[in-house]
């Protein structure tokens, strides 16, 4: 018995031997293809349904992402520690990048030509040309 075998963290050493059959992988591939087709179809949806299209796209993107990670990358069948690391890291990274985007006012349209704001439809007005108030002498 080695020192490693005595370690309390060896509980995962024999985890995750299962492999789905070839048919399961074909089915998963088919589902991913259908989802991709649906995603592409949203590009031609009417303009009025743009917000719905964005929501649908994000949901399908998340489903595809998780499907590939769970089945093709074997996270579903592999050691639990990898799944935990992946989920923890993913949530943390998403939070960090959403926070970064918020810091740059990604969600706002303040009207200034910065970052994600659309181009101005009208020219920027010139700054006020009034001279600053003069300070009386002796004060």
């Amino acid at each position, binding site marked *: 018995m*080695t*020192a*490693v*075998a005595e370690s309390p963290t*060896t509980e*995962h*050493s*024999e*985890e*995750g*031997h299962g*492999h789905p059959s*070839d048919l399961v*992988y*074909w089915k*998963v*591939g088919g589902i*991913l*293809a259908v989802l*991709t087709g649906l*995603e*592409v179809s*949203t*590009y031609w949806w009417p303009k009025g349904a*743009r917000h719905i299209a*964005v929501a649908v*796209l*994000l949901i*399908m*993107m998340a489903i*595809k*992402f998780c499907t*590939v*990670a769970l*089945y*093709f*990358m*074997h996270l579903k*069948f*592999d*050691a639990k*520690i*990898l799944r935990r*690391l*992946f989920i923890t*890291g*993913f949530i943390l*990274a998403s939070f960090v*990048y959403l926070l*970064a*985007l918020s810091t*740059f006012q*990604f969600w706002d349209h303040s009207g200034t*030509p910065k*970052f*994600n*704001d*659309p*181009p*101005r439809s009208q020219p920027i007005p010139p700054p006020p040309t009034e001279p600053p108030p003069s300070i009386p002498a002796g004060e």
Partner: protein
Amino acid sequence: MADTAQLGSISEPHVGVEDDTAGIHAGHHTNTGISNEKLGMWLFLGSECLLFGGLISTYLLYKNRPGIVILKVAAKGAAVGSPIRISKLFDIPFTSVSSFVLLASSLTMVFAVLAASRDQTDKLRLWLGTTALLGAVFIGGQVYEFTSFVKEGLGFTSNVSSSAFFTLTGFHGVHVTLGIVMLLSCIALTFRARKPSAEAIEIVGLYWHFVDVIWILIFTVVYLIK
């Protein structure tokens, strides 16, 4: 001295292990039960997530930034010399086909990993070759897309939006290219007496699937969301 011996047994998981190719999820003599190589690849993919997360965030920030592309040739219903946003230049049907191709390559990679775990060398070469071919088709499509953009007037330095776009998709393309090199190397190694282990194929597969996962994000965020 005892500590040193313990560390030695941790850092040399394959010494004396005869069934290295017996199964891709076989238990390893490490603290985590996962081989150091595989854990290293997962950590590497984690750092890659940070890289692509930053690139995607940058593109999102700059995608509508003032700054327009002046068309050199008539395209998308706009005349020569007229201003146009870069998203108007996207050829969605063409990029969709590329996405399907990359998705299909992920499926073929899975079968390559399965063939490796079953010790089926001929099938392994076939699936690895198919995956590399599909990856090459994807890269060819990207080169064609980039060339079209440049001809239409959208270069790397046209505006900040185009810089962010080319950096993001270009980095992804480089990753796919490196993946193709890995796949071809694996095929070449199968002709040697000492073939690559099933786990080595799985680790290459992890990288390839990661590249596919990143494209799932890029395709939606960059191309499809208006």
